């Protein structure tokens, strides 16, 4: 049983911890789990969705799809934040980049995502200022070092990333920074998952839930999937043994006819999540309807900056004029994100659309399903 208190803090020597973490790559442990999955898999078959893009990559890189019994299908979900960002949001960032004196600070993946007629990379080539950041804190440092420029951070990402950006905004407020703002396109997972489990064409039997979203949220936001829809879910980590353990626990639930939300990643996920991070999200953001590529408008699935922090909202500060949306011709990213087709079923895959020359975002991001399938299958 896991205790309700926040944490047991224990100083560990690095060697012990490294050994413990190395176990999650141990082939012997993996073999036992693969065997269990084979024994427990329902005869009538099962379709599992890995929700998270980092899981898509872990599954592809470790060949886990090929280790599954024939009756078990793993399908990739919408958990790549860059991929689900709508064309309109990308066009908004491009419009912000075109405002004189603005520097766009962004995670690297975003620069190559094509909008309606341009991309941040193209804008950079045309002389606009675009800086790649590893952390929202880098954007704060940029603002501090360049008081004569306006730094706009592109806030994309799910519950894992949202509290970091909330903290960056709180830090900017505390520092009295006048030249820092955020284009907030953050999203949360539950509404998107509800859309997917309700889709009669997908017939999902269970969900492999994202470990580091769970680190922040805990299991509560996912409970409705089990209670209302009878869909079992296991929150798990990203090492091969973590993923296999998650799948084995799902198989056990299916075998026993249970539907619960369980944690296979106890070292990184507490049932109640991270209360400090949840409070930070709630202080700075409020939920709103968000447009997801492939899934459309989902009420409550987006985060916008609260009125109290409106001075850090780049849309309010600059009110950019956003060009009319044009979706790339022939691109089926929407269907891939909805799991209606596998990347290789898209007519553009590998022929017109490649990581070097991506047509849609799922081929741009290293976590996109198309990029993962291109690289590993």
């Amino acid at each position, binding site marked *: 049983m896991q205790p309700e208190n926040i944490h047991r803090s224990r100083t560990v020597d690095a060697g012990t911890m490294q050994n413990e973490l190395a176990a999650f790559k141990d082939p012997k442990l993996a073999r036992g789990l693969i065997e269990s999955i084979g024994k427990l898999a329902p005869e009538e078959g099962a379709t599992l969705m890995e929700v998270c893009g980092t899981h898509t990559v872990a599954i592809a890189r470790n060949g886990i799809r090929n280790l599954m019994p024939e009756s078990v299908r793993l399908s990739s979900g919408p958990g790549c934040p860059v991929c689900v960002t709508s064309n309109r949001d990308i066009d908004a960032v491009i419009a912000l980049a075109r405002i004189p004196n603005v520097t766009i600070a962004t995670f690297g993946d975003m620069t190559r995502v094509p909008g309606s007629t341009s991309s941040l990379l193209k804008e950079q080539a045309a002389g606009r200022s675009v800086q790649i950041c590893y952390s929202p804190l880098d954007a704060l440092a940029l603002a501090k070092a360049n008081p004569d420029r306006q730094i706009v951070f592109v806030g994309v990402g799910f519950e894992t990333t949202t509290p970091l950006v909330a*903290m960056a905004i709180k830090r900017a407020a505390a520092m009295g920074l006048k030249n820092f703002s955020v284009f907030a396109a953050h999203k949360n997972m539950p509404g998107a998952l509800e859309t997917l489990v309700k889709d009669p064409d997908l017939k999902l039997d269970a969900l492999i839930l994202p470990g*580091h979203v769970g680190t922040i949220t805990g299991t509560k936001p996912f409970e409705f999937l089990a209670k209302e829809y009878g869909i079992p879910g296991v929150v798990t980590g990203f090492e091969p*043994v973590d993923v296999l353990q998650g799948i084995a626990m799902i198989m056990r639930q299916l075998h026993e006819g249970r539907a619960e939300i369980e944690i296979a990643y106890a070292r990184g996920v507490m049932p109640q999540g991270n209360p400090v991070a949840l409070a930070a999200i709630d202080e700075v953001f409020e939920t709103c309807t968000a447009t997801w590529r492939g899934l459309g408008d989902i009420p409550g699935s987006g985060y916008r900056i609260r009125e109290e922090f409106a001075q850090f909202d780049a849309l309010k500060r600059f009110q950019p004029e956003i060009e009319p949306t044009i979706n790339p011709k022939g691109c089926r990213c929407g269907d891939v994100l909805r799991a209606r087709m596998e990347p290789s079923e898209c007519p553009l895959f590998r022929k017109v659309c490649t990581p070097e020359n991506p047509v849609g975002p799922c081929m741009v991001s290293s976590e996109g399903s198309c990029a993962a399938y291109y690289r590993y299958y």
Partner: protein
Amino acid sequence: MCLAIPAKIAQLDGDGMATVDILGVTRSVSIDLTPQAGVGDFVLVHAGFAIEVVDPDYAQETIDLIKEFPDLAGDELPAATA
């Protein structure tokens, strides 16, 4: 994008910042979201922020559970096909 890497806190630097060791590389990260973290703790680092203190006891418990898994699966089913 939701990748987070375990890192060991080497030093607390004040103002919610700490110096960590990530697989031999030293980096400055924010501990705003894990104010309880202290020197010697392992934390999960995502985009420059510690987002959780990794509990080594839970890591060991999980490994023990995984080791039991094949036996549990075997006990529950009449015939193993693998």
